[in-house]
């Protein structure tokens, strides 16, 4: 059999069209590269539109004492010092310029009295630091980048999904994928590839993530020989909707707490006084999520198993102005008027701190020519991400990845891909159609989500994690027998059959890393190892592929220069 496919050539191919992917595209275009962007959905629908609270950048428009050093310190402390310090430094230093650039491309942030960009308070940030547009900052960002990209003439392949990376010897050579609309195959030859595919939340049952968040980019990179790092650190956002059932997991922005929202249990107690009396509701996300979870487990939860989040003490007009989409979301989906009554909220799987291991300066992975940025990459956030540091991450490292990918492409004359890789990729895609009694992919997905939710959730222990690995083995066997109904045309079942493979790969990486780390740090909480362990504080877990087996090793956390060390430890 010879697979039929179309071919496109690019210097730089970007997989993913959220904030990181689009910013990478702009960076590579500015270097004169021929750039292509591939995305699973329509342009402008990526998960970045869901980001609500803001972009963290030490611009000091509201609190003049803020500077990159404080932002760096907050980020490192929030990440429990497991971060790559150089990434945290670059991020804190470059974020303000990236925000100004967005404004110069047409973004309209909320303003201070003096006409500067307004900044709001957020968990774990010492100063008011988040540049925002009400509670729809992500939409503003993606639309601005999208418009800029259209203006500069990027080629966008919409509703196109990459199923495999192709190699030219040891380096990257291209990617194989398919068009959703007709189900036809496509091969991209590329000198550099940037992975900007976001996170993995769809492997859990309760999540704020969209259908796209299936860990494809991490699984693609892993398959191509790149390393994954910090995979045990999955962020459960403290506040997702809990009622009604259909909306369970939908995000309730941290901006509610940033604007003064208060958490209470069913007894009316402001319980954060017990868990973090200093920072209260604006403690870091790992702490607030565990606190809510603990209140519910100990019988002090609300009617539907959450906590109350109340902003109704603020003026009604103020709430509608600063949190408009929260107002509409609760009014329309839960019959709750948040200007008058409290919301019911509980933890929801939200963000992946871990991901593809990359170089801090260039965002290049261990595979030459393969780059990664944003949520798909690891390092900046360590064991826990601060709210607002994601959008700034996308801009800072998206740009760097794009620039470095374009530079790398200049060093390559031509790429060649042997047809064997392409034939194999095509066969992998088509085989589910041939199984007449194959299992429904939706059933397997549901079982995976339940296993990860129950066994690899906020609180973990050895027994659960060991069982999770056994369950994942069974699920892998079932995915080997998955079947697909219908034709190749726009077929969600077929798509899910592919996504399941990625979700299983990242789920296994998460579980193995979580089982190995015998301590509690940031978002990783082990009931059987409740405290911090100093030896684990110097190690990152690194996952790689050897043949068909997943291997795990520890790599030392890079040591900070002395002047940065002082920044992090002083004035506890």
């Amino acid at each position, binding site marked *: 059999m010879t697979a039929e496919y179309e071919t496109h050539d690019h210097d730089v191919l970007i997989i993913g069209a959220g904030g990181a992917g689009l910013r990478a595209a702009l960076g590579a275009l500015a270097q004169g590269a021929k750039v292509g962007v591939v995305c699973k959905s329509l342009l402008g629908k990526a998960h970045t539109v869901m980001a609500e609270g803001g972009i963290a950048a030490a611009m000091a428009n509201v609190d003049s004492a803020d500077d990159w050093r404080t932002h760096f310190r907050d980020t490192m402390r929030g990440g429990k010092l497991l971060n790559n310090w150089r990434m945290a430094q670059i991020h804190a230093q470059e974020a303000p310029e990236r925000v100004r650039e967005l404004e110069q491309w047409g973004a309209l942030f909320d303003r201070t009295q003096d006409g*500067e960009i307004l900044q709001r308070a957020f968990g774990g940030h010492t100063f008011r630091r988040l540049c925002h547009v009400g509670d729809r900052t992500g939409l503003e960002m993606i639309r601005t980048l999208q418009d800029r990209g259209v203006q500069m003439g990027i080629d966008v392949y919409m509703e196109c999904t990459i199923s495999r990376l192709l190699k030219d010897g040891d380096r990257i050579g291209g990617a194989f994928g398919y068009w959703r609309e007709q189900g036809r195959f496509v091969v991209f030859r590329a000198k550099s590839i940037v992975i900007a595919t976001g996170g993995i939340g769809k492997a859990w049952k309760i999540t704020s993530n969209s259908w796209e968040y299936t860990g494809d980019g991490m699984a693609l990179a892993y398959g191509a020989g790149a390393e994954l790092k910090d995979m045990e650190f999955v962020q459960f956002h403290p506040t997702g909707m809990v009622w009604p059932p259909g909306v369970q997991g939908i995000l309730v922005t941290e901006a509610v707490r940033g604007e003064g929202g208060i958490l209470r249990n069913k007894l009316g107690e402001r319980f954060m006084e017990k868990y973090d009396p200093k920072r209260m509701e604006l403690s870091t996300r790992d702490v607030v999520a565990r606190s809510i979870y603990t209140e519910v487990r100990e019988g002090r939860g609300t009617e539907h198993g959450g906590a109350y989040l109340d902003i109704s003490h603020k003026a009604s007009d103020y709430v509608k102005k600063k949190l408009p989409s929260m107002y509409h979301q609760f009014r329309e989906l839960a019959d709750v008027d948040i200007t008058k009554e409290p919301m019911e909220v509980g933890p929801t799987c939200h963000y992946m701190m871990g991901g593809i291991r990359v170089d801090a300066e260039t965002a290049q992975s261990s595979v030459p020519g393969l780059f990664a940025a944003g949520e798909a990459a690891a390092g900046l956030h360590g064991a826990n991400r601060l709210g607002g540091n994601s959008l700034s991450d996308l801009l800072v490292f998206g740009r760097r990845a794009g620039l470095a990918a374009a530079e790398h492409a200049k060093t390559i004359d031509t790429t060649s891909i042997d047809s064997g890789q392409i034939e194999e990729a095509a066969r992998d895609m088509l085989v589910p159609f041939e199984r007449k009694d194959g299992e429904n992919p939706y059933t397997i997905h549901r079982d995976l989500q339940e296993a990860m939710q129950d066994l690899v959730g906020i609180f973990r222990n050895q027994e659960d994690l060991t069982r999770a690995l056994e369950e994942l083995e069974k699920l892998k066997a079932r995915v080997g027998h998955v079947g697909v109904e219908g034709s190749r045309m726009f077929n969600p079942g077929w798509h899910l059959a592919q996504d399941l493979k990625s979700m299983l790969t990242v789920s296994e990486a998460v579980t193995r890393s979580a089982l190995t780390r015998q301590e509690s740090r940031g978002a990783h909480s082990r009931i059987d190892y409740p405290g911090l362990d100093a030896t684990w504080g110097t190690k990152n877990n690194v996952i790689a592929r050897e043949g068909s087996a997943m291997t795990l090793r520890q790599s030392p956390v890079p040591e900070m220069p002395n002047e940065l060390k002082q920044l992090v430890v002083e004035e506890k």
Partner: protein
Amino acid sequence: MAEAIFEVFRGNRDGGKPATYRVPIAPGMVVLDALHYIQAHQAPDLAIRWNCKAGKCGSCSAEVNGRPRLTCKTRMDALPLDKAITVTPMKSFPVIKDLVTDVSWNYRVNKKIPPFEPRPGVEWKMYQRDVDRVQEFRKCIECFLCQNVCHVLREHEEKEQFGGPRFFVRVAALEMHPLDSKSRTRILKDELGIGLCNITKCCTEVCPEEIHITDNAIIPLKERVVDEFYDPVLFLVRKIRGANK
């Protein structure tokens, strides 16, 4: 458990017909939940678009009982359940498959619009009172429901001459940006055909973001076009100067 009956369009460019599905009802359920249930249990190849499921991305547009809606925000308890709920694709765009339509025309129209162009040497200060009205337009999530419901596109199919409400909103956001320097009135008149809009406000009614499309975007833009091209005094001035434009 209570059930709802759905009649969902199944088909492609060559035609199709409704298929019937029974879906158990849960509290607070929305139409998109029901479509997901159908995919998981009865029709794994049912084609729909969705992403955020929270009214923020504008992907899941369709027509529910003939009304253009975001299916993620259409509550089942707001629909009569004594008869079948019909779900059909947006009428103004060609069907690809089932509820998925070809909206690529919108992306082509968007490319015609000259981008933001700040005044040279401008100081980057703006005040909330000046950005408020533009922020309203920038709430647009590109669900294209306004395009779907607009008579000029839905009944008259004037896609070559007319840009549609979505892009008037986009032009309004650029034209009213406090620091923008470019005029887009000629494009509004000649390429986006704003004169074809007869202000029936259908677009405003369906906008899930509650943008006042007609009053705040289209009418002010129409006024700008009239001022620039149809003002009798300016007309005379141009005539005398020899109309170098």
